[in-house]
């Protein structure tokens, strides 16, 4: 076997040229994957060579064989899916370390990589550590004998949700019988699932379009992320949450006007307290125009919003946005779930926000320091429970809608989140998986083989919005059906009746303290 060792810094090189054998000092890192090919099956069509954007496949003309550079493989499976003869297998490279429960292979490899590069380790997607997922320790109730369950196929079942601040009380004008109270703007969504903030630049224009189209097909909302909105997507404005983040990229009057909801981004679950850095290579001419920055320059989002150092400052920006849009749109404030989320959320509600978005430690990103992604922030389950509880005990829960984000994997997670106290959830990763993402975590390279986290012209084409929007819509429709089934089983016919109804939840394998924080009883109680 020929051992090919490439410099890790160059491991995501764009070139698909033949590997250079030992032309530099070998890295001590072993390839993570092994690309195996059945020569009996391979017809040398070279589809895999073309599809692999990481340069892990090449055609050796003199030998008439397709070969692999294992070091470059990120395990994205693009080649596997596209190979017409199922000739390719991607396996973990079978290098076995001496068993050690503490110095795990990942730990050794991270240290080695840092010893070789001297840099902060950057990665993509969300926290991949086997930490407790409280969704997996919560059970939902079902009706038996004493209260009837409902068949959602036979009876109406309501998932419609209104996002926006609700009044403390409503007055009916006795003369006309009409509502006398002026309501804050309310946004109707047909299902309590929204698409998380992913900026144009971090993801391709076709991904933005796919999310926008899916949102309009479903009657829900997608979030622009911090990179503005391409003018060709203005027609989906009615399904758009326009984010205003610390870099203020792409924020101008028209952007605010076309959107349905505005969102001030304070933090993000994958990297709380950290700014953003979109490398110049991803800033194509179109991205630059949308972001209103020069082509090819790094787009740096500062860690804090430099005009917000207090709740009072936040309030000023909230009202500046409301003034700018004539009080026609709800303003959301997005924060990462951290230790004092309850108190912070109370401040945000009092500062005039209509929606609070909470993003937990499982939240994903296009690029973040690995150490931050995996260690900062708290689980979203705890944050939802504590924020909902705090707002309720202060009597201001009605003033804001609560939206949670960060690792929602299925309709069970969504339903439990609603029972814990949110109005709706944001999904990001699940929507990308619907488009083809395999969680290979190479988003930060800008070479996503599935054409998702890239602005490369050639790779962008790999997402056809007609197909991708339908796949995302299918996913959310399936979840919506399942949520209806679960509501029916609980004997409830509207999502309204489940919101914050923690009596429908029971904990399994939780300590009494954890159950108390979550505000749930234990199973059997």
């Amino acid at each position, binding site marked *: 076997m020929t051992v090919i060792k490439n410099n890790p810094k160059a491991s995501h090189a764009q070139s698909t040229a033949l590997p250079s054998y030992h032309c530099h000092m070998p890295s001590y890192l072993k390839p993570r994957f092994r690309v195996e090919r059945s020569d009996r099956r391979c017809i040398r069509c070279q589809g895999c060579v073309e599809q692999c954007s990481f340069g892990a496949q090449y055609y050796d003309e003199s030998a008439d064989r397709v070969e692999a550079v294992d070091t470059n493989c990120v395990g994205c499976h693009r080649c596997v899916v596209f190979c017409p003869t199922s000739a390719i297998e991607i396996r973990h490279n079978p290098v076995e370390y001496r068993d050690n429960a503490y110095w795990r292979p990942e730990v050794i490899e991270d240290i080695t990589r840092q010893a070789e590069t001297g840099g902060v380790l950057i990665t993509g997607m969300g926290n991949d550590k086997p930490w407790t997922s409280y969704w997996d320790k919560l059970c939902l109730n079902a009706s038996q004998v004493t209260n009837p369950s409902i068949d959602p196929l036979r009876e109406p079942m309501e998932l419609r949700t209104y996002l926006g601040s609700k009044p403390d009380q409503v007055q009916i004008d006795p003369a006309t019988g009409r509502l006398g109270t002026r309501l804050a703007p309310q946004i109707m969504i047909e299902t309590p699932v929204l698409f998380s903030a992913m900026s144009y630049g971090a993801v391709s224009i076709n991904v933005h379009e796919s999310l926008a189209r899916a949102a309009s097909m479903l009657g829900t909302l997608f979030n622009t992320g911090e990179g503005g909105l391409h003018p060709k997507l203005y027609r989906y404005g009615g399904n758009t949450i326009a984010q205003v983040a610390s870099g203020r990229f792409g924020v101008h009057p028209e952007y605010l006007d076309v959107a349905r909801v505005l969102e001030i981004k304070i933090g993000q679950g994958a990297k709380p307290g950290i700014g953003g850095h979109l490398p110049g290579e991803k800033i194509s001419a179109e991205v630059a125009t949308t972001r209103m920055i020069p082509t090819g320059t790094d787009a740096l989002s500062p860690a804090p919003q430099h005009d917000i150092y207090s709740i009072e400052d936040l309030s000023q920006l909230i009202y500046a946005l409301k003034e700018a849009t004539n009080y026609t749109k709800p303003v959301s404030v997005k924060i990462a779930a951290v230790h004092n989320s309850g108190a912070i959320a109370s401040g945000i509600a009092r500062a005039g926000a209509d929606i609070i978005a909470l993003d937990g430690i499982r939240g994903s990103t296009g690029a973040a320091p690995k150490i931050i992604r995996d260690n900062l922030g708290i689980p979203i389950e705890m944050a939802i429970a504590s924020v909902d509880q705090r707002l309720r005990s202060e009597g201001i829960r009605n003033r804001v809608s609560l939206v949670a984000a960060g690792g929602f994997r299925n309709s069970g997670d969504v339903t439990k989140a609603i029972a814990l106290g949110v109005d709706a959830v944001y999904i990001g990763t699940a929507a990308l998986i619907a488009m083809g993402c395999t969680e290979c975590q190479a988003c930060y390279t800008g070479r996503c083989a599935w054409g998702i986290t890239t602005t490369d012209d*050639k790779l962008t084409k790999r997402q*056809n919005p007609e197909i991708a929007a339908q796949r995302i819509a299918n996913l959310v429709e399936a979840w919506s059906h399942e949520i209806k089934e679960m509501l029916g089983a609980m004997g409830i016919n509207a999502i309204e009746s489940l919101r914050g109804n923690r009596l429908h939840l029971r904990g399994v394998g939780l300590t009494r303290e954890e159950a108390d924080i979550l505000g749930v009883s234990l199973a059997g109680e």
Partner: protein
Amino acid sequence: MVNRVRFREDYCVDCRLCEVYCATAHSQSKDVIKAFKDERPSPTRGISVQRRDATSFALNCQHCDEARCAWACVSGALTKNPETGVVTYNPEKCIGCWTCILACPNGAITRDSEKSQIIKCDLCSDREVPVCVAVCPNRALVL
């Protein structure tokens, strides 16, 4: 109206599955591995992916209303089927002069050097939807 396979270069991802399955559909065994690895002569295909830099698209016969290849064909091997509109190739009559290749404005006809004949798309006359359209994973080929 004659059916035509239209390519959409904005969505072609250069995967060549159209080529692979066109050849398989026109092979003896109809089995992708056997067709490519065992069959001699090798199966031919009427579609080919053109590429330069970031652009790629799959080109095949457009079954033109005024088919210049049929007009140019000296032996009557290429004819426009008056009913289906398909530009049909009869290898029995072909003498391998390759005049049609020069006449085709799309470059959709290629040489079969093994047999000194031509290769061109037959719009998969035996199928409802041409195989290239059916297999294209990104809807870069539509009818």
